[in-house]
């Protein structure tokens, strides 16, 4: 084992020990190819600091929060229907059990908002990757109920673990695993192929500008403020 993977393993174990043991083993137990990565648990909160409730999430509205690092954006969606669990297969032969929606209707899902194709992500300036509700289809692809990146038209299905529907992406968006507890919703880890290493590598200059340093951008979060994407992004670019 080289030094880097040793340190990574230690960190993973250290983080895992902060996670509720029962929940952790439940999600992990279902994963064959170690596609689940536990991170520090983080409560989803509203902008006023109070825990986010299910009733705060309007159906088909796009909400943004940052997890597991302060700089890694995620989308939270209430798809207003039960989203069942399913198996997701990747092109490299790996697979994982996607847990489906959470909440009373099992309609709430969350994904990393870093495009798995060429890493477009919502910045304060623009978002090229967006959710298109059923009543607002894409002008270009005419599809609705999808997450679509306008840079190269990568299309993902939020009802199916953000698996690839069409376009050039090779992998689904990574899933942010949510856990509903008495006091609210927690993000507990990332399932699937995350794009974090490419993200931090590629956007070093941008992240330094926004967060002061890459190290600061990588800091783990313990609370996630959830807000409508339009509140964070100046111009949501749809196509």
């Amino acid at each position, binding site marked *: 084992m080289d030094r880097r993977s040793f340190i990574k393993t230690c960190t993973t174990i250290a983080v895992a020990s902060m996670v509720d043991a029962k929940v952790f083993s439940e999600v992990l137990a279902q994963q064959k190819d170690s596609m689940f990565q536990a991170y520090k648990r983080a409560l989803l909160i509203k902008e006023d600091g109070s825990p986010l409730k299910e009733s705060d999430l309007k159906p088909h509205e796009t909400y943004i929060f940052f997890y597991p690092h302060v700089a890694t954006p995620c989308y939270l969606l209430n798809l207003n229907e039960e989203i069942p669990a399913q198996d997701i297969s990747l092109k490299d032969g790996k697979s994982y059990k996607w847990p489906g929606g959470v909440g009373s209707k099992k309609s709430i899902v969350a994904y990393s908002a870093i*495009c798995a*194709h*060429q*890493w*477009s992500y919502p910045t304060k300036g*623009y978002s*090229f990757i967006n959710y298109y509700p059923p009543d607002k289809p894409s*002008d*270009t*692809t005419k599809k609705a109920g999808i997450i679509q990146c*306008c*840079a*190269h*038209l990568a299309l993902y299905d939020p009802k199916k673990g953000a698996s690839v529907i*069409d*376009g*050039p992406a090779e992998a689904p968006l990574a899933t942010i695993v949510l856990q509903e507890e008495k006091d609210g919703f927690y993000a507990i880890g990332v399932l699937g192929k995350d794009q974090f290493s*490419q993200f931090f*590598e*590629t956007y070093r200059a941008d992240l330094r500008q926004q967060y002061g340093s890459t190290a600061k951008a990588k800091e783990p979060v313990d609370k996630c403020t959830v807000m409508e994407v339009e509140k964070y992004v100046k*111009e949501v*670019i*749809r*196509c």
Partner: protein
Amino acid sequence: MSKKSSGVDRREFLVGVSALSLSAPLLAYTKAPKRQKAQVVIVGGGYGGVTTAKYLKKENPGLDVVLIEERPFFMSCPMSNHFLAGLMELTPLCFSYNVLEAKYDIRFVNDKVLGVELDKRVVRTSSGYIAYDYLVLSPGIDYDIEDKPFYRDSLVFNPPAFKPGSEHIYLKRLIEDFEGGDIVITVPTPPYRCPPAPYERAALIASMIKRDKLKAHIYFIDANERPPVNSEGFLTAYYDLYKDIATYVTSAQVRDVDVHKKVVSTSHGNFKYEIANIIPPMKASSLLEDAGLLKKGQKWVEVNPLTFETSVRNVFVIGDASQSYLPKSGYAAHSEGKLVAKLINARLRGKEIKEEFLQMICYAMVSDREAIMTETAFRYDAVSKRFIPTHREDNQRKESTARRYEEWARGLWRDLFG
């Protein structure tokens, strides 16, 4: 420096340095030894070659990959019209090949390929032979000017700026120094590199004339009846924005360019110019002709349309040089590179991959702020053995499309060099 940089191992390199350091400048570093071997040799460090190299190593880090390119650094042709029109600096378009060595252990050989000997499975460079098991040729285009010698003079005076590098820099200077008069831009018939590029360039130069309130007129001389893509979007923009400062002459053949009198003779009359951007017809790089991959009269290399493999097993031609269902563009070359990398890695494991159909996306600026775009998805009909395109155009010019355009390019660059 990576372990295998430029095919010289550490010991050889150190010996070379100590021998040379007393008497000569450090010349030996980038030179390939007289004969070396690599599992995969890639010729051409453009969008196709870089993508192939990177994706081969990403999936299979132990693979021995050599990338040969005569230019010392990469410059992107996509977005280069932005540079010409002053909408983007040159720096974001340029990347160092060193990144590929440092991050992916790809051996970069900065050298000119003089020939390919398919029977012996070797590539001949100016400093030696490199043998291969798999060969990926992505050498791009040459200007097809042999039967029209007037283009040769024109190349020197009127840079086409369809090959990345000094042509763009020289044309940019001509544009910057331009204070008024007539500008002539000519367009050949397809296939040529990047179908919307001349139309975008004409629009951007017109928009500069308008912005700077120059006393100038553009004669845009097109061998085609109309733009081959986004026709509606380009023609609407020309009419709405530039009808007083530009004349669009269609179906006009260039017959002569007199670089001293500064006159372009065409089938539709003669046009005097202050500056000209004469875009010659194009063909596959002559390297492929010398290698025997082009039959007499062919301009582009025939490949298996699903795999980009030539008639010679384990020899692939990708990018603008191949005759493909995809238009000639950096984006297509990038997609083809990914496909061929996957295919070679599978073949090395004794497997073949499933068929994959590539998609095309092109953007074009029609003013300094707005762009239009097109997207084509392809389906292969096994019965007719033809690719059926589903073509969608967004011809409504929008600022948001211009932003997508920039993100499209930045995404590609992230993928190539990130």
